[in-house]
């Protein structure tokens, strides 16, 4: 048993299956040497890889030289495109390309300048270059397979596996084509040099130049060249193979030369075999030894329609129109121009398309040469196609499924192994264009596979997106949880309480609105920030008002008072002052009616007292004392003198001067009030008490108090029924007292409202007077005077009860600002800041009083 190499050396050939013997018409074009046509004016160079793997290096209007690179790119299978001649880029646009579809492809349109000037060429010898440099040079020369498939040659010259055998394909089995034939005859030495480069790169054990026996001249020329070549003897060998179509097919040729079949879905390199075209070998030689890129190739222009058939060097990018017109192409009606051979070529729809690297033949046959398309008839299942098929397929089955569009079934009959050689169509007695069906089926399968791939990608992306959304959602939730936990941890003392306080406020308001009894919340006691304090103060004030208005039980008040104890800042004081002022007014409003309930007055006192104690400020104390005193006075006015004694100890506790003064004033007032109820002498009695007080202000305040007392007394006198109600209230328990108070209040309000319009004006004036002591005193004096007059006026006419109340109420309303005035005048001695605040408090108090009055008016209406 001979080894493969021995058999190769011996020239043993194997049979390839199938195949046909179409009539040979190579003589039409192979009689003359390869000629050159005059330079065309316009070249169309497709740059299909631009945008995918490459970028353009030229722009419209650029001057280019012959051989200049038009694109630049990376990527293993990227091949550069070169300018076929010197000239100018006149357009870069979509142009129909040399393809069965004639679809437009991005192309550089180059206008030749006629110089045909080369760019700088760098020739090398093999010794100068490393293998990688050689491969790069081949790559950047843009060399692609010249046999028709135009696969980048540098890829095939740099295989992953060891190459034992290189086959140089000079078979050229298509009936009309003779470009390789002529190339071998005319450029055998150059081809051998190219083979030398391939040998240098791959270092195979054997290089077989395969030539069909219908080209004896070419075989002889190559044989001679091999003899002349410097390659090691015995490595290169010319093998003549019998003529049969399609022996030139890569897999068929391998089978003929070696007897090995390339498995389906594999490439020959996996068997250690590489097949290169003779044209490629020539181009490699040009690239290495001359530095010329692949910008022209031998094209067979043949067919009976062509006047001068033959082989021509055509620059790549020459349009087929130009090429044909240069060889006296006579266009007949509906005549096709076929690119490639008659067996595998395709008819062009448009002749303004360029010659490409794989375009080896342009066939312009007459009607005699190729029969016009005939209608296909039904498949008779003769099986001729199966005999002819070089790939050992079952063409009729493929046809069956392809026609039924059952492409997956066609695929199961190994459709992908069809080389589209056309043997089956050639032998078909029913004139079925079988290859057309296979091409359709193949493209459908390809599209299907592509869609499936896209669907998989889409699914992956969809799932990735879902995963991402899910992750984002989880992350968001985790973050929110974390933030919540953090918030919870950080708001321990302050925020939580603030929130609670706010909630309490809301609750308190609601309670106020719905029921009269409000119970301010205990949480206020822990409030320390300003706002909270203010809120608490307002809360308190409201609560007090509510209690005063409705006589809430004492316990509730104590709660609010404890809340006050913690209040230590200024605003709180102001608020407290405001609250006090309100309380006073409310108390006064109650007292106006003279149906003053002891309970309510006492509770207000109880409420304000502790708060005043807690407040360490002088002013606050003073104000508190004043408030206390007044409240007591009011209470006493209705009851007895005993309360005055009760008031004294509380005031004694206050160690401050002013406090004492205020207390004295209060005492005096209380006495006066008490006396007013009994006799008119109280005014005289009150005077000595004021003597004891050394301060002028105290006197003023006392005067004011006196005036008030009088007025109140007068009011009591006028309305006997109210006086009668008061004692009764003392006796009865809370409920009844409340009822009575409510009745009294309502009455008082009515009375007050009768005179309200005028009162508000009078009230506003004194508030301005608060500014300094003098004015205050003047105002106080005025007030006093008024009060006296009123008192005098009311005294004689006791019977005029109907008219009097209005006057009384007027006077009481006048007293209100006076009270504020006294407070303000007291505070004026302290600090300007405090004075301001006091004033503010007074103003607020006044405003509140007005509001109360108005509200009462509205209620009445």
């Amino acid at each position, binding site marked *: 048993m001979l080894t493969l190499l021995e058999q190769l050396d011996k020239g043993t050939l194997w049979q390839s299956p199938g195949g046909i013997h179409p009539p040979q018409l190579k003589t039409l074009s192979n009689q003359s040497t390869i000629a050159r046509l005059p330079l065309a004016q*316009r070249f169309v160079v497709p740059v*299909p890889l631009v945008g995918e793997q490459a970028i353009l290096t030229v722009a419209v209007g650029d001057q280019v030289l012959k051989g200049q690179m038009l694109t630049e790119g990376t990527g293993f299978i990227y091949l550069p495109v070169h300018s076929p001649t010197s000239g100018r880029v006149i*357009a870069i646009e979509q142009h*129909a*390309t040399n*393809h*069965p*579809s*004639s*679809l437009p*492809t991005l192309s550089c*349109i180059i206008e030749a300048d006629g110089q045909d000037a080369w760019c700088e060429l760098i020739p090398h010898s093999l010794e100068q270059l490393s293998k990688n440099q050689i491969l790069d040079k081949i790559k950047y020369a843009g060399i692609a397979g010249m046999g028709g498939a135009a696969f980048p040659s540098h890829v095939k010259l740099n295989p992953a596996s060891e190459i034992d055998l290189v086959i140089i394909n000079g078979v050229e089995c298509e009936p009309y084509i003779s470009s390789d034939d002529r190339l071998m005859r005319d450029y055998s030495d150059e081809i051998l040099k190219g083979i030398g480069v391939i040998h240098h790169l791959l270092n195979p054990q054997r290089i077989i130049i395969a030539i069909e026996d219908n080209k004896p001249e070419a075989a002889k020329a190559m044989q001679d060249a091999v003899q002349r070549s410097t390659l090691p003897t015995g490595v290169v060998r010319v093998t003549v193979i019998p003529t049969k179509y399609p022996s030139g097919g890569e897999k068929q040729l391998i089978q003929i030369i070696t007897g090995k079949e390339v498995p389906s879905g594999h490439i020959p390199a996996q068997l250690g075999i590489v097949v290169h075209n003779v044209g490629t070998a020539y181009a490699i030689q040009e690239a290495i030894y001359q530095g010329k890129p692949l910008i022209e190739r031998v094209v067979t222009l043949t067919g009976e329609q062509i006047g001068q058939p033959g082989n021509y060097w055509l620059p790549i990018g020459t349009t087929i129109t130009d090429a044909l017109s240069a060889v006296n192409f006579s266009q007949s009606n509906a005549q096709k121009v076929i690119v490639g051979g008659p067996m595998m070529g395709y*008819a062009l*729809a*448009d002749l*303004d398309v360029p010659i490409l690297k794989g375009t080896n033949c342009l066939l312009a046959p007459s009607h005699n040469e190729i029969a016009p398309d005939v209608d296909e008839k039904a498949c008779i299942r003769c099986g001729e196609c199966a005999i002819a098929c070089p790939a050992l397929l079952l063409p009729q089955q493929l046809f069956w499924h392809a026609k039924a569009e059952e492409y997956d079934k066609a695929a199961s009959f190994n459709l992908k192994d069809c080389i589209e050689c056309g043997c089956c169509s050639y032998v078909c007695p029913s004139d079925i264009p079988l290859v*057309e069906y296979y*091409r*359709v089926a*193949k*493209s*459908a399968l390809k*599209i299907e596979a*592509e*869609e499936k791939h*896209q*669907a*998989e*990608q*889409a*699914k992956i*992306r*969809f799932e*990735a*997106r879902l995963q991402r959304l899910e992750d984002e959602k989880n992350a968001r939730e985790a973050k929110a949880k974390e933030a919540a936990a953090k918030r919870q941890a950080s708001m321990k003392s302050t925020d939580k309480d603030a929130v609670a306080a706010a909630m309490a406020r809301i609750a308190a308001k609601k309670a106020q609105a719905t029921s009269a009894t409000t119970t301010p919340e205990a949480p206020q006691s822990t409030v320390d920030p300003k706002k909270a304090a203010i809120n608490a103060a307002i809360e308190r004030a409201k609560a007090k008002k509510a209690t005063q208005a409705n006589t809430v039980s004492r316990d509730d008040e104590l709660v609010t008072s404890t809340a006050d104890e913690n209040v230590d800042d200024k605003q709180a004081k102001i608020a407290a002052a405001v609250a006090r002022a309100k309380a006073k007014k409310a108390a006064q409003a109650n007292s106006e009616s003279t149906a003053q309930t002891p309970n309510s007055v006492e509770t207000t006192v109880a409420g304000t007292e502790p708060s005043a104690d807690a407040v360490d400020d002088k002013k606050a104390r003073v104000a508190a004392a004043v408030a206390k005193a007044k409240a007591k006075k009011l209470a006493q006015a209705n009851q007895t003198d005993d309360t005055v004694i009760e008031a004294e100890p509380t005031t004694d506790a206050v160690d401050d001067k002013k406090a004492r003064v205020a207390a004295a004033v209060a005492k005096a007032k209380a006495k006066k009030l008490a006396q007013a109820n009994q006799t008119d002498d109280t005014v005289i009695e009150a005077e000595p008490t004021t003597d004891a007080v050394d301060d002028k202000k105290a006197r003023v305040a006392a005067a004011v108090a006196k005036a008030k007392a009088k007025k109140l007394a007068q009011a009591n006198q006028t309305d006997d029924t109210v006086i009668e109600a008061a004692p009764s209230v003392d006796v009865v328990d809370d409920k009844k007292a409340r009822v009575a108070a409510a009745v009294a209040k309502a009455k008082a309000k009515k009375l007050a409202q009768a005179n309200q319009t005028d009162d508000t004006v009078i009230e506003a004036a004194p508030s301005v007077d608060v500014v300094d002591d003098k004015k205050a005193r003047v105002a106080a004096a005025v007030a006093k005077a008024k009060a006296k007059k009123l008192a005098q006026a009311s005294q004689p006419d006791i019977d005029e009860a109907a008219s009097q109340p209005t006057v009384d109420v007027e006077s009481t309303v006048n007293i209100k600002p006076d009270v504020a005035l006294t407070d303000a005048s007291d505070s004026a001695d302290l600090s300007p800041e405090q004075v301001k605040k006091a004033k503010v408090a007074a103003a607020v108090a006044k405003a509140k009083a007005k509001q109360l009055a108005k509200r009462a008016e509205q209620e009445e209406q």
Partner: protein
Amino acid sequence: MTSIFIAVAVLSILALVFGVILGFASKKFKVEGNPVIDQVEALLPQTQCGQCGYPGCRPYAEAIANGDHINKCPPGGTATMEKIAELMGVEQEPLNAEAQSSVKKVAYIREDECIGCTKCIQACPVDAILGAGKLMHTVIAKDCTGCDLCVEPCPVDCIDMIPVETTLQNWDWKLNSIPVKVIQPEQEEQTC
């Protein structure tokens, strides 16, 4: 008499042995989930367009496995329906009326009109739209499934569904059955 007992005993032993084998096999070779769902899903085009009324191809595959109609997938077209019919062993059903158009389309954003609202990005089931807030968006045509879902949310209506361009790579030889004739535009002569 003894032969009866032997027979009963032998059959009982056999029953026991086979029972154990079957029990073991059912545990050992237990199939998780419904394999039909995966098979149906593999046939669906994975556009995730929701035209079937389900939120994605997988839910529709599940629905088909549970006996839903097989004609609800417009992107898959008749071919997909036929495959599913074959797989499920059910009668073929004509596709819904609106599902006839089989031309594959991809979304295209008219970029100078895009206001950068990101709504289309949120709508895209396959993350094929690229962009950021207040910046121009664009569609990665390669990844676009042509599901139409981005068209609706666009507030400025700047998304077009354009048919996929025919290139040399995806050109269908079927078109060649009608001889290709290139009609040159008039202007081309003037420019050349």
